[in-house]
Each structure stands twice: as C-alpha cells, then as structure tokens.
C-alpha cells in the first residue's frame, strides 16, 4: 500500500500539482494544500466570476458546481477537488444553460452591485434542475444561504419564479 510519504510534512508550503476539468477544459495547476478552491479559480485560473465574500460558508458568493452539484468553493481546498469537474459562472454562461435566468435577473433588476449574482445563479440553476416548479417559499428556502446586500431579495425570487414558470410552459420568460 502506498501510505503517507513523511517527507511531505517537512514543507507544508510545497505546492502540489492538481488537475481538473474546468468549464469543459482540462487544466492543471500548482497549488499549496491550504489554497481554497475559490482562490485557485480566481488567482491561478483567472476565473474571477466566482466571488469570495465571507470565506466561511455563510454568504454563498463563491458557489460553483463540483461534479454537477452546487458547492461553496471557499469551503474546500483545491487539492480536494483534484480530478473533479468544476463549472463556474463563466462556463455556465458560455454554455447558455442559464441564459434565461440571466436575462430575467437583468430584466427585473435582480442585481445591483452584482457581487452575489454568480452564487445566486448557480444556486437557482441547481434548484430548477431538481424541482421543476418550486413555489416562492421553496425558492426562498433554497436561497437561504445566499446573501444579497442590495436588492432585498424580492426581485431575485420574482426572477427565479418567472423562469421556472416559463420553463414549465416551454416558452421564454416574460
């Protein structure tokens, strides 16, 4: 069995090579074990759409998809994600899967400064992929870990609600 290599412990700053598939592209980078995934995405990979707010799992600004599920990129180290598929707001935008959500957020002023928006969109995307037509309470419940200091949330809930209904009817949001 290949166990722990104790020379690892001599230099805790030594970087480790990690590989992921980020937004459909294979990437490799060198990270210190203590580097969080959000820092790796923003600094090493220059994907600055993912925001770092509280860095302790409270605000939701840093949400990304890890192997298809929304996770806080501030609550994991990049080394833990070695081998995983990661989709950030840039990738979700490029592929067009959240285009209707983005248009509806824009139309309803569901963003002002925009700091919370990438996290809101990742979360809304996951919600709508699991529950076809959530009611407003379910939407609010799903957003309970995403802080917005600007909008007062109402417009965000409206936008997600409108997209859910539009998707169910098979048309575009109004």
């Amino acid at each position, binding site marked *: *069995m*290949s*166990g*722990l290599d*104790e020379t*690892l*412990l001599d*230099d*805790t*700053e*030594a970087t*480790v090579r990690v590989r992921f598939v980020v937004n459909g592209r294979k990437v490799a980078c060198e990270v*210190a*074990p*203590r580097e*969080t995934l959000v820092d790796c995405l923003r600094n090493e990979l220059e994907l600055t759409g993912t925001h770092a707010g509280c*860095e*302790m*799992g409270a605000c*939701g600004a840093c*949400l990304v998809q*890890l192997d298809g*599920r*929304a*996770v*806080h990129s*501030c*609550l*994991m*180290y990049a*080394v*833990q994600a*070695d081998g995983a598929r990661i989709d950030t707001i840039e990738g979700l935008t490029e592929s067009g899967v959240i285009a209707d959500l983005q248009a509806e957020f824009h139309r309803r002023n569901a963003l002002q400064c925009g700091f919370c928006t990438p996290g809101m969109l990742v*979360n809304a995307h*996951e*919600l709508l992929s699991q529950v076809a037509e959530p009611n407003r309470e379910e939407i*609010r*419940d*799903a957003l*309970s*870990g995403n802080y917005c200091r600007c909008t007062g949330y109402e417009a965000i809930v409206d936008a997600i609600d409108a997209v859910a209904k539009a998707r169910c009817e098979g048309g575009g949001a109004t």
Partner: protein
Amino acid sequence: MKARAFSYFRAATIEQALDAHARVGDDARFIAGGQSLVPALSLRLQAPRLLIDITHIGELRGVRREGGFLRIGALTRHCEMLSEPLIAEFAPLLHAAAPFVAHPAIRNRGTFGGSVALADPASEFPAMTLALDAEIEIAGPSGRRRVKADDFFLDLFETALQPGELITAIYVPLFKADQRFAFDELARRRGDYALVGCGMLATCAGGRIDDIRISFFSVGNTPTRVKGAEATLIGSSLDSERIAAAQAALEGDLAPPDSDEVPPAMRLHLARVLLGRLLGRLKEGA
C-alpha cells in the same frame, strides 16, 4: 481568514488513513466534507500540520441493509439523506430532518459521519442518532468497535471517539410498521441554527405508546434525550393530559445554558411548545 499551511494526504483505504494519523499524532486531522473543519481552519481555531482526506475510501460509502439495521456509510452526504430511497423507507426520521440541515450547497458536501463526529449540540443528525437508538461504528489503531449513540456524546464537542479514530458507518435499526416519527425545529430563519429542535421515534401498539425516544438539540452541551418526558408517555394514548405532563417533565430533563440572546426560560418554553406540537402530530399519525 486563511488557514495555516498544512500538508495533504489522500488516503485510499481506512488502514492508510489510520496509519497516517498514527504517524503524525495530534497534529493530524481527518477531513471528509469539511463544511465545519474548513471554516475552523480559516479562523485558525485549529491548525493541523496534516490533513488526511478520507473521502476517497470506498468502504466508508454506501447505504445498505445489514441484519436488522440500515448501515449508513460515514461518507453519506446530507443531500443523499433526501435522495436515497433506502433512507426514506428505513430511516425516515433522517429523511425528515435533512432539509433542516444548513443550506442546499452545504448538504451537497457535508457528511453524516462528519456531523456525528463533530457532535455540534445544535446539529440535527447527532441528536437523531439518539432518537433512533443508532450505533456508531468506529475504526482506530486498536481495531473496530460499535458504540451506542446513548454512550457516544459525552460533552461539548466531546465524544467517545479517541484520538486517531474515525467513524466508518452508522447503524440505524430498521423502521418498522408499528413505529411513528416526528421532527421539527424552531429557528429565526430557515437554514440558521435552531433555537430548539426535536426528533422522536415511537413504537405503538393498539393506539398506545409502547416505547418512545425523544431527542432535543440546541438545548445544552450535547444532544439530549428527555427521559423524564419519555417515561410519562409510555402506555399513554397521547391524550392531552399526558402530553401536558410530558411538557412539564422537560423542566427536569433539560438545563438550557445561560445566554443573553435566548434565556434558559425561553428555550425551555420553546422546547415545551415544540414537544406539544410533535406529540400532536404523532397522535394524528398513530
């Protein structure tokens, strides 16, 4: 808000993980979902020299029936408590509690074993292992053992886990046709820690309570069974007098901590309200 530097080791087997821990000692930490550990490292409440990642150990995964138990692998994620049909059928109390655990994205990463090992007195799942009379399987340098939930939670964040040991699985007695369960919590906002929370599992015979286990969380240093209240309910048909007696018994069962935000008398009051509601639901379902 950055962790102190550490080394990282991804263990492939339980033996590798235990061996790495044994070699580094107190300076090593196991990491699974990391949803509590990572913030603790960011705040430098802890500063280990080595993180041992156990999430790639196959033996810690999976949910299956084993004898009279449902064996829930330690790495079972909170979101799987909602999606796994075996849990909905054989451990419905966990299924009912899961939506109350943190936020959806935390549930996508956090693990059952990690939650029980941390033993946060405000968490849902540790308390539910008590209500379920579950057994916690532990692997460590001196072998494997199983500890009853009743004997597992010792004090604030202190459990029967010894240094270098890890939880491999939690065994939950299979839910039976003559059983009923109820769960709820009172929180200021959804996703916040509960002011008071409670789950219960009762065995009924002919409309009477044969056996009942009631466990509270957010009421003190550990998840807490309320044995006085349980005793008043045995043999009853959950009539309003007995429910009132059980509510009264909470005064002897619980000793909520001093807190300016939620004074002990208020927490006790909320516990009584919650107990009344849940017993009412149990009766409707019985």
